[in-house]
């Protein structure tokens, strides 16, 4: 991945593939036994699209998020971001990728260093990844936290001093610090109660509209994901069993697994 590809400011059309996975496999070797967390996974994400990834626990949903963000290296296959291969990036190249691809974790309180105040964690990403941050770092952190509907006073709190929903908002604020082109939400609402879930979803969709970013929404909640996504990918045992427009997948499921999932919801 070169500098120009990722840092370039050119506008892509709505149909442009911003992210693409080609035959990606992730194999873990545990005590001599091989276990495929991802098995020949291929899909793409278009610019400004909301893509849902659905599956049971252990189906490989989070592994996808980890291979895209470079937290896990795929055993085989390739990942492309805006046409550039990002499969095996060096550290400094990864940092450039993180200016464009960010992630919101499932357990928001655990995604903040328990020994650090929320503000410090948000300021850290601004300092390290936002080269042209206007105003002071603190001011930018205050602006971000207020954008997600929290008072700036929350910057002075530790993760354990705020609720799960507030922590999730703060995690979104941190991810939004770099104004990413792609935001991966890895079961970001599964630990929250239904009312807070709706608030967080609304916030994510609002930010997506305002910032014109693409969203990968990973969840096991088919009802929730199908209501907000443009396309759906259904995963089982590390494989994609079905993919397509959300309406098509929900109204006319092809695989038995998807049918079972839908039956469980309806």
């Amino acid at each position: 991945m070169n500098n120009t590809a990722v840092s370039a400011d050119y506008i892509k059309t709505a149909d442009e593939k911003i992210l693409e996975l080609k035959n990606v496999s992730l194999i873990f070797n545990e005590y001599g036994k091989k276990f495929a967390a991802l098995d020949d996974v291929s899909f793409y994400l278009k610019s400004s699209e909301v893509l849902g990834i659905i599956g049971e626990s252990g189906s490989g949903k989070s592994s996808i998020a980890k291979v895209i963000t470079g937290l896990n290296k795929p055993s085989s296959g390739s990942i492309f971001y805006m046409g550039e291969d990002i499969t095996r990036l060096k550290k400094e190249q990864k940092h450039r990728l993180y200016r464009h691809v960010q992630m919101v974790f499932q357990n928001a309180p655990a995604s903040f260093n328990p020994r650090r105040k929320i503000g410090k964690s948000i300021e850290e990403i601004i300092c390290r990844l936002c080269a042209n941050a206007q105003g002071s770092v603190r001011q930018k952190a205050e602006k971000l936290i207020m954008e997600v509907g929290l008072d700036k006073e929350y910057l002075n709190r530790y993760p354990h001093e705020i609720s799960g929903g507030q922590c999730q908002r703060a995690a979104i604020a941190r991810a939004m610090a770099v104004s990413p082109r792609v935001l991966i939400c890895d079961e970001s609402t599964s630990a929250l109660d239904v009312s807070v879930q709706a608030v967080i979803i609304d916030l994510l969709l609002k930010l997506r509209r305002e910032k014109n970013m693409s969203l990968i929404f990973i969840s096991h909640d088919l009802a929730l994901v199908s209501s907000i996504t443009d396309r759906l990918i259904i995963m089982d045992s590390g494989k994609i069993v079905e993919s397509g427009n959300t309406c098509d997948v929900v109204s006319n499921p092809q695989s038995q697994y998807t049918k079972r999932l839908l039956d469980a919801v309806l």
Partner: protein
Amino acid sequence: MYNNFNRKFAKDFWLLFAAVILIIVLSFICGSFTPYDPHALKTGGLLEPPGIKHIFGTDDHGRDVLSRVLAGSRTSILSSIILVLLSCTFGTALGVICGYFGGLIDIILMRINDIFLAFPGMILAVAIAGLLGGGLFNALIAIFVTSWTQYARLARSQTMVQKEEAFVHAAKLSGCSDINIMFVHILPNIISTLIVTAAMNVSVAMMGIAGLSFLGFGVKIPHAEWGSMISEGKKYLQTAPWMALAPAGVMVFVMIIFNLFGEKLRDILAA
């Protein structure tokens, strides 16, 4: 009731903390302000029992045992603390690096660690001190070589747990370097366990230095050090037991204070 318990808990901790600080300060100051010259040999007043003039009595060279105990406190206590600080810092840094990076660097460093752990600590320290020769510095090196291993093991295992935490992944996505993640994000979250271990190990280090001096591998006479004083006094255990019992008693007292402080610190950090 819970608050009363917490208050008592905190009060005990601060009392022990004050005692530890007092011991450290006294050992530093008293080494220079002893009632008598701890090294001056005399022809009269040999093996005088404890009394008003000499609270801990005198030794076989007529030296005031209290003065020598006070002079020895600086060597024994400060060198133990320095030793623990060095071995904790070195072992922790190595353990964090091994735990974080894993792979070949972890395999090599941990096998070296295993080699040191395979030998009984004191035996290895005696062997190293024997090779290097006598003296406090060499004794410290000998004990350092055997004591960093436990901190490395502990730091490694704690780092391996912490590096899988979501906040470490989030730090990576925030653009933090490996050094920053290891020592700014992970270390503060594992340091409490290491501090408790270090606090408990001050007494172990004190015993190690005294042990080497007792065996003749540490501080050489006539320099005052509790282990060498006990060694000198063992010849007179039946006729002048104060020569050995005074430094031994003070050493046991100091070790108990440090151990109690370590335990209380563990309780406080675990609460």
